């Protein structure tokens, strides 16, 4: 019988069985096996409410959480020390960084620390404190100087097991001095000289630059407009043995992974 027959064959009786899908299965097969795989399941994908809120409030989306065995510490702006600096400064606070480094040393998940620097220097004692604590970490560390790692940023850059500098990044090496208030007594000069010796000693003992070379860079005239000293850009810092290699993020991470593997292999051969 055709579906399209235009008249009723038997009045009042629907002439054909409409096509229909089979009845839904009311009692699906069940199994007592807890490992039973029910087969294809529908996956619902989409953004959770939190993600949308993050975009609205901060202009950022949340990065999916992947536990990394590397911790990245960024040291930016002025390194703030014993004195709170006015709010126009971007600062790295040592009272936050030092316990973080303690936690990283203790953490079982973190196997290596990457230090990313873009700093204009800052407090001598805070900078040296951070550098000393990085140098004394038992976990492998690498540093990457991006943009600038000036003055007290230099000891922090060299405090790691292996240091990198971006091709365009610069490091200013200049003497420590008090600008502004200078008290004209001999002790002032002696004191500043001692402070400077602390920095020089740290840098020469944690990098391959010689003291003579470093002091030569520090007191060179004719390079800086308002000061004596030197600006080292990328390769220059490697040429004078201050930094180990010119490189970027991938080199710094690969080196860190290599150091982690070496440490795992039990070489214990972490060298400066």
């Amino acid at each position, binding site marked *: 019988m055709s579906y399209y027959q235009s008249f009723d064959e038997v009045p009042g009786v629907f002439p054909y069985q409409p096509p229909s899908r089979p009845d839904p299965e009311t009692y699906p097969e069940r199994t007592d096996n807890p490992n039973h795989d029910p087969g294809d399941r529908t996956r619902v994908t989409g953004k959770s409410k939190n993600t949308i809120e993050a975009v609205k409030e901060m202009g950022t989306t949340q990065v999916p959480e992947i536990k990394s065995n590397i911790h990245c510490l960024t040291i930016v702006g002025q390194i703030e020390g014993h004195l709170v600096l006015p709010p126009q400064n971007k600062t790295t606070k040592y009272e936050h960084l030092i*316990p973080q480094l303690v936690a990283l040393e203790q953490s079982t998940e973190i196997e290596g620390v990457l230090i990313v620097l873009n700093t204009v*220097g800052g407090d001598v004692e805070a900078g040296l404190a951070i550098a000393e604590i990085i140098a004394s970490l038992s976990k492998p560390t690498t540093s990457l100087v991006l943009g600038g790692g000036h003055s007290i940023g230099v000891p922090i850059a060299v405090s790691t097991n292996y240091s990198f500098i971006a091709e365009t990044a610069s490091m200013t090496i200049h003497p420590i001095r008090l600008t502004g208030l200078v008290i004209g007594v001999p002790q002032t000069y002696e004191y500043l000289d001692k402070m400077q010796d602390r920095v020089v000693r740290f840098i020469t003992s944690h990098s391959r630059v010689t003291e003579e070379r470093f002091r030569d860079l520090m007191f060179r005239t004719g390079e800086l407009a308002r000061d004596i000293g030197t600006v080292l850009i990328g390769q220059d810092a490697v040429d004078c043995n201050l930094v180990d290699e010119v490189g970027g993020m991938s080199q710094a991470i690969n080196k860190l992974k290599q150091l982690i593997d070496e440490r795992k292999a039990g070489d214990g051969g972490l060298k400066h």
Partner: protein
Amino acid sequence: MILYTPMQLELVLAGFEKLDRSSEREVTVNGVPAIVKDIGGGKMELVQILSTNPMDFLRSELYPGALVKADS
């Protein structure tokens, strides 16, 4: 205190006299003792973590400058 920086000290220290720390107080944030600063509108900014547990310093929601709520 010696600042070792190629930046001009007048720039770094500009406004140093105007620093006001009177709105800072000590509270507990998510169970962690901390110094916070009122920044108006009932909002508080974390200034410093006072905890002695080093792991508190790796918590992602607690860092200097974070907007926080004090535990009631």
